[in-house]
């Protein structure tokens, strides 16, 4: 639930931010009571969120914590939340290797998405690709055919105007040869053009049927910690998220 930030709330939030900054900033923490923990999170997408001691949500791999035992819940989208317990030793860096396990829901989603894509390729990609290739073939035949037609028409016109028997013989040979090629282009064009039309009709039918019969699977990437506050300091600035309500 989101609230409109009034001026009064803004002042409070700003103050809270500064408090948190001062509280969490390593320079202002009693160094002898803290240690560093490094989370080596093993997952494929590189993203993770860590909820430390059920209170502090961090999205970085390293943090300074008070010495003593701690508990962390680590999550990444597509993975189950994993709980780990660890001990922070003063003035020491503790490395914590955490391998996240794929969530069953995500694996089911991946499988259903894989099936969806396979159906998509079968119903849309394949007919559209074949139609496109047939269309390009028809286009090539058509362009060649038009070139030949223009040449033949010009030769026929020249034939009527030519008073030289030898030139007439050459023109007729050229017309006959070009007309043979033109006929091949015509048949090629009609066959590939017809197949293109069939392909368009098939693509439309299978595409529309696919759209009506299938729905793209979705997977929620929302974090189980999204209601928690978080604090982050990075090279570009700091971020403090506090959800009201």
């Amino acid at each position, binding site marked *: 639930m989101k609230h409109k930030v009034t001026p009064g709330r803004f002042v409070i939030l700003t103050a809270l931010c500064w408090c948190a900054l001062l509280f969490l900033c390593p320079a202002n923490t009693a160094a002898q009571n803290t240690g560093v923990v490094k989370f080596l999170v093993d997952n494929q997408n590189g993203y993770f969120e860590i909820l430390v001691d059920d209170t502090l949500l961090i999205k970085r791999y390293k943090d300074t914590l008070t010495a003593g035992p701690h508990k962390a819940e680590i999550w990444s989208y597509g993975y189950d939340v994993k709980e780990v317990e660890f001990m922070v030793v003063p003035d020491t860096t503790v490395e914590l290797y955490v391998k996240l396990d794929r969530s069953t829901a995500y694996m089911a989603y991946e499988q259903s998405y894989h099936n969806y894509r396979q159906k998509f390729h079968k119903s849309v990609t394949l007919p559209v690709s074949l139609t496109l290739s047939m269309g390009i073939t028809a286009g090539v035949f058509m362009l060649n055919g038009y070139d030949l*037609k223009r040449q033949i028409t010009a030769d026929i016109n020249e034939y009527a*105007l030519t008073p030289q028997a030898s030139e*007439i013989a050459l023109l007729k040979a050229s017309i*006959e040869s070009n007309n043979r090629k*033109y006929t091949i282009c015509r048949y090629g064009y*009609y066959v590939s053009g017809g197949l293109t*039309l069939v392909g368009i009709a098939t693509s439309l039918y299978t595409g529309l049927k696919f759209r009506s019969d299938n729905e793209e699977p979705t997977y929620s990437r929302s974090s189980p910690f999204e209601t928690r506050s978080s604090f982050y300091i990075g090279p570009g600035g700091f971020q403090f998220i506090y959800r009201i309500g």
Partner: protein
Amino acid sequence: MKYWIVVIALGLVTSSCLKKIEGVDTLNTNIFDKEYAGDCWFYIDDAYSYYNDFGFPRVMIKAVLPEENAPGLQSYLIYITCRVNNQQEVLFNSYLNTSGDYTFFYDAAPETSNEYCLEAGIYLQDEDTTINRFTLCTQP
């Protein structure tokens, strides 16, 4: 529904392209073509008897190669070989006249039958031969 209308329209447009070229199978209309298959390319316009400058009787046959039988050949000098009956063959060069036709003449000796058959053909200078001979008969 609109998709199918587009498909049908495409089909109609497609089928209207690359039609068979008219005239390819009938390339035999040029009178200079050795494979000319048209009708007689000239007609006899006039035939009359007259006496020449030496007082001998003669028969003049006037023939015309009409413009429509030689389209596009206007202003071109053409050579025509002519012969009436079995008389001497002559070579006549004809220019375009004002009406767009080519006119040629044959000055024949009188025949007792009074029938004059004009045989004319197109003379090819390069090959020194005459092609597409036709014969038309007339009486003065």
